């Protein structure tokens, strides 16, 4: 195995290791800090987001939004 192959193998192993460690760590932080804190804020400021309840009216239908039929709308991912 030449030096170049050895370096490439080392790089690949480092990338795999980083993915194995960094991704779970990042997800852990994103979940417990990001989602957790947002939940705390939502509980204080917008509790209905966490516990949606149906309205009291005589229908549960709501007006549809964002179903535009032009190309501009179709280009949007949200």
């Amino acid at each position, binding site marked *: 195995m030449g030096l170049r192959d050895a370096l490439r193998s080392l790089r690949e192993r480092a990338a795999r290791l980083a993915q194995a460690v960094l991704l*779970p760590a990042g997800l852990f932080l*994103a*979940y417990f800090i990001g989602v957790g804190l947002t939940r705390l804020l939502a509980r204080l400021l917008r509790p209905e987001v966490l516990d949606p309840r149906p309205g009291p009216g005589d229908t549960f*239908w709501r007006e549809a939004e964002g179903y535009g*039929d032009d190309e501009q709308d*179709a280009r949007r991912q*949200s």
Partner: protein
Amino acid sequence: MTGPSKVLGLSCFYHDAAACLMTGGAVVAAAQEERFTRRKNDEGFPIQAINYCLQEGGITARDLDAIVFYEKPYLKLSRALTGHLRGFPRTYASFRRSMPRWLHDRLTLPLDLRSELGFSGETYFVKHHLAHAASAFLPSGFEEAAILTADSVGEWATMTRGRGEGAKVRVESELVFPDSLGLLYSAVTAFLGFELNEGEGTVMGLSAHGRPSLLPRLREVVTVRADGSFALDQSYFDFYGGEAMHSPRFVDAFGPARLPGAPLTDRDRDLAASLQALTEDILVRLARDLRARTKSENLCLAGGVFLNCAANQRILELSGFKRLFVQPAAGDAGGALGAAAFVSRSLWGFPSAGAMDPFLGPSFSAARAKRALSAAGLSWKELGEDDLCRAAAGAIARGGVVGWVQGRMELGPRALGNRSILADPRDARTKERINAKVKGREEFRPFAPAVLAERAAEFFHLDAPSPFMLLAPRVREEKKASIPAVTHADGTARVQTVTEASNARLHRLLKAFDAEAGVPVLVNTSFNRRGEPIVCSPEDAVACFKETGLDALVLGDLFVERHGTA
């Protein structure tokens, strides 16, 4: 007409990934990825289905003017994150599983299309239920219609209603997550020990064996308004990352969940019957209200909920609509077709190329079929159409179970006579024979009939076409004894009406069987073994023939009998 004309529709990353190519308003090809990968309900990026569609259209991805995805990914992500917020901290495991997929595939689709396919045109995103609505209305052949869509959940919507007129599809109102008829049906399906996104049809079949004795209790779970709109009492469910979709309160109300494979009890049968009754009640109310609001006589349906043929039948009978069109690929695979049709017709203005033809998948040559048979050491007879139909009809009338593979593969979950297993409906034991030889399904599940359209009213209480096997009319009392193998426990049958125009060869076979056996009806079930996708290629069909107890196989004009094994 100049300007853009070639559009590829895609559905993937949830279940039933599919691709659909349209050129100038006409569907050129459409297929589900599972048929190529042989992984049932494959949800992955549908690269093989895409390649097939492009090949069928004689183009490459560089020739496409647009690719359209059947969802708005960022909206769907917002719903997923809200779910994690509501379920925190129990949703950590599913967060860890799903987020890498979002980052890797779902939010990077335009980039992936460029790097994987070399595509450089426009990328569009159509809302999930708009794709369903378009798949229901645009190929329906109606000039105008009311539209109802329902499934588990798209981005946020779980059900929509609206109108179609000309080439325009308008979604007017929606119900949103977590109030979902599809999720309710799936939650009970899982509670009864059947597989999610697969076992719902099994529960529908089971429902005919029970009494709706638990309907009052189930009504406490779902608040239904007079117009059919509804809300689920969330205290009975856990849609946010729990092990099951139901909560302990659901167990308190209905008893312990059935484990997969455990013997079925009266409670299980009655719960299935109650769920089916509630589903039908809600859908009929929704359709009646829609009829009153729109005054239309035509109703178009799509979304996985409308694979429920018993409910569709009730809608047709009780809603006041005179004509019904149910998209044959009502589930997510049809979203690829709907998204492409929306861009092609509603945005680009191409005229309709005619009503829905479900035979949009790969075909095969006689040479390829012969190669597949030779490679498997099978001998065959090559017959003209009349002789072929007579030979197959004779084999079926003698009690044979026959694999029947013709022309282009169907889009959607039903085999409509091009990738089918056919058998004799006159013998009540046919069901056990098919299950023993190849299908291996639960004994309570019915098999469906294909019938000559012009003779359908003789056998069934049916005065509307049912070309896609999505209606379940009652079998006429005097005919039940003549077709017991396709008469379900509740006296209904999931009928496919066959005309010469819809499937000429199956039509001819039904006539040949009528001449041989005296009934223009055949058992028609999908050509696959339990847990496998429907066969696609001649090689798939030959492999299934070799590994099962099928008595004969017809591949195009080639007729193979079991004793003909070399």
